């Protein structure tokens, strides 16, 4: 299978920027509606409020992986390739993230 046009999201390096969430949002090209969906989903999964000024270094490793997964899911990218995403998640989060991925209309590969 040709994966060259998939957006690769590797949980070993979940976030590219290292200051506030606004920087990471620029990379994923999220509009305001997608940002609202992202923050709602993140709050449901992590019981934590996100704003564009949230310092991503204050998120735990697992929360950073969840954020990466949601950023990609809410981005315009139609094809996603997730790597190593479940290792950093607790059992409940694995189940919930797995459901989100399974219900997404995007074409998604999880390795």
């Amino acid at each position, binding site marked *: 299978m040709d994966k060259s046009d998939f957006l690769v999201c590797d949980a070993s390096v979940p976030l590219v920027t290292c200051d506030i969430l606004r920087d990471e949002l620029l990379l994923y090209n999220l509009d305001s509606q997608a940002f609202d969906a992202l923050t709602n989903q993140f709050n449901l999964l992590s019981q934590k409020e996100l704003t564009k000024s949230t310092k991503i270094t204050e998120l735990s490793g697992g*929360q950073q992986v969840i954020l990466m997964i949601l950023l990609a899911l809410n981005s315009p990218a139609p094809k996603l390739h997730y790597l190593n995403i479940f*290792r950093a998640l607790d059992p409940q989060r694995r189940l919930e993230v797995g459901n989100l991925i399974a219900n997404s209309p995007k074409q998604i590969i999880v390795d």
Partner: protein
Amino acid sequence: MLHISSGELTCWPGFSLKLESELSFLPGNSYHLVGNNGSGKSSFITQILLPLLQKHEANLYRIYVQQLFHIQGFAIKAHAAINKPELKLRSEQDCLIYLLHNLSEAIVRQARPVYLIVDESLYLPVIYDYLKQFGFPHCLIYSHHGANPLPTPDHTIAFKPLSANVSSVYETGL
């Protein structure tokens, strides 16, 4: 050797850990930190445990294997390239073994207790086997979300969110 008094400790603005009783971390013991994502395990390590270990750095060795090991791996590869250019570190496991060899050489030069903190590493069993093989006195503190790949730890420390801003920290089975 390391003791942390009970009480509420601020890790970040808006997030603190409530230690229900004093915690002690002693060489010869293993400690499993358990709790869901965001319960404060990594904050405990980076904001409380590591600064405390730093205060005692003249009397011990410490190794911290980060949850997101990628950047740390680059630093280790750079160290190897400068100090042991004949070695070619390729994988994360190569980097960890290099780090542990470096530690064992330091112990041969000057024996001190070793504190190893391993935060969600795929290579926890590799680290454990190395420690067991080398046999130096150590205190192993680790977090791991999957089935515990190590023998039953001597101590289990639980992290339980009381709210979005506070988690309770306590040793189970006491």
